[in-house]
């Protein structure tokens, strides 16, 4: 049996008599990107603090490549690069001085490596400015840079998209996918926004009130293709009215018409047939899309209202 990159075993945290984390249990494999989603106060940051050794565990264990964070701290934490909550760096030092500072704490990080990371996060221009003059997004980039310095095999990013502009988010997304695919790095990304990280994750874990409610794969494409499960599809067609009539007469589907777009609830399997039928009737099809909100809907169903306890 191969050891997972990261393994949480019945992880529990009590502060005072409040149980903040309640028996968390999940594993992450090498090369997997795990999205850690939950509303404010769910316990994402607390879990991450325990994984990186900033907080002790009340019960349970965390193993990193099989090494316990409790009994083998140095070996375990060497594998990890992380940003925890806000990217807080030394404001009175330059970006470069900050990176050098953290590089000195781990043997074998060359200046070339530091420069490589700087160009990766596109911070060449501002790297010799003091961090106190950085924008939030620049700090976030520098935070990501310090997490990557030592080529960690597990990367933990607590809300890394916080403060990034759309281009920045896309860069991070691409880079995270590449890290997982090419270098087999296991990655945990926490966020409250599912939509923001859905596309970079292989799997999503949903946490609420310190409990892991569910984990679920994002790209089960093979399953989905044959799936009988109904989903919402959006058809952009002209003329829409006529298309609705045709589809209703030939298929057994719920169809709504709004602003020239048909919203059809059906199984994925049926979509190609519908398109063929519409083409036969000489309709102009501009776009067919799945409604993004499926996972998001599920997320809200699971979480319910966000009541902070």
């Amino acid at each position: 049996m191969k050891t997972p990159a990261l393994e949480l075993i019945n992880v529990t945290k009590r502060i005072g008599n409040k149980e903040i984390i309640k028996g968390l249990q999940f594993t992450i494999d090498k090369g997997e990107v795990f999205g850690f989603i939950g509303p404010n106060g769910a316990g994402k940051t607390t879990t991450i603090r325990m994984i990186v050794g900033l907080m002790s565990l009340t019960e349970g264990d965390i193993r990193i490549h099989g090494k316990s964070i409790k009994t083998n701290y140095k070996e375990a934490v060497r594998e990890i690069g992380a940003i925890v909550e806000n990217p807080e760096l030394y404001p009175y030092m330059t970006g470069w001085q900050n990176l050098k500072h953290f590089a000195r704490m781990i043997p074998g990080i060359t200046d070339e490596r530091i420069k490589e990371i700087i160009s990766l996060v596109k911070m060449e221009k501002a790297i010799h400015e003091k961090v106190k003059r950085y924008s939030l997004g620049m700090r976030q980039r520098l935070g990501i840079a310090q997490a990557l310095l030592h080529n960690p095999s597990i990367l933990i990013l607590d809300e890394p998209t916080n403060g990034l502009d759309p281009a920045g988010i896309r860069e991070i997304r691409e880079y995270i996918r590449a890290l997982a695919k090419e270098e087999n790095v296991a990655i945990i990304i926490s966020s409250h926004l599912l939509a923001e990280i859905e596309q970079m994750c292989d799997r999503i874990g949903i946490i609420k009130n310190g409990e892991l409610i569910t984990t679920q794969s994002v790209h089960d494409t093979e399953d989905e293709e044959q799936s009988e499960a109904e989903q919402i599809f959006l058809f952009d067609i002209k003329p829409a009215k006529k298309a609705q009539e045709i589809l209703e007469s030939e298929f057994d589907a719920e169809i709504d018409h709004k602003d020239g777009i048909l919203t059809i609830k059906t199984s994925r399997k049926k979509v190609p047939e519908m398109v063929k039928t519409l083409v036969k009737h000489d309709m102009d099809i501009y776009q067919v899309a799945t409604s993004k909100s499926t996972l998001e809907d599920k997320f809200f169903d699971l979480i319910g209202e966000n009541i902070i306890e």
Partner: protein
Amino acid sequence: MSNFFKLIYNELFKIFVRKSTWFMFVALFIVILGMGFLEKGFGDDYTSENWRAELEQENKELQKDLEEDDMEDSPFYDFAMSTIEENNYRLEHDIMPLSTGGWSFMYLSTSFLGLVSLFTIVIAAGIVANEFSQGTIKLLLIRPIHRSIILLSKYIAVLIFGFITAVSLLLLSLGVGGILFGFEEHIPAVVIDNTEGLTHISVLKETIYQYSFYSINLIMITTFAFMISAVFRNNALSIGVALFLLFTGNTVVQFFSDKEWAKYLLFANTDLRPYFDGKPLFEGMTLSFSITILLVYYAVFVILAWGIFTRRDIA
């Protein structure tokens, strides 16, 4: 460079990259310079020709004052008596008194050792607390290094800073004195009073002694400030409590000097010099007693700082 030295380098780098640190050294320089000009304006200026006559003159005047006032209880009486004694000793042994000159000025700088404590306390108070207030503690502690080692690197950096500051005081005063006054022909001597009566010692030796004995005081008070910083993570609290102790410590010892337990107070034991002059602060105190007390305090500070810092949750 080994890993541990890199950690200390990091800590020193963070201290010296900040402007506020350099401001301390500028302040130190200004204070020394200020004293230099005061000394130039008002200091005694004995020359190798005139000093005997001047001392005799001074003795005569003091004698006259004493006879006129005839107040054996007044504090002036003790001062006058010891001055006369010292002057006589100098005349007998042909030792010129301290005058305006580089060496004498360096010796005067020992009165500013309190500034070294002040600055080192400020650094010790901030070195852990600031990491918490900036939030950088999280990134600092997720490295493959045990917390106790990181704390040790910080502690050593504080001690090095204290050492650098003390040496700066010494060299700056020597430099300022040398430039303002030039150096005396012979290294002058101070007259001190120990169990065998009056004796004399060169200012160079005496200065080194004073700095060395003071370092015990410095280490204890900065270790205390460091401990408060590590335990309470609060810069201002740490500076406040440590400075309060620094300024009131000796007074508190004086105040309770009639109590049996006063000899167990930290500041009753930080000055080991009296043992070497044969004059302990309290009856029955010995050098080994004081060293034991110091070690107990030190151990308590270290155990508190390390015990709490290495165990606490970083939230």
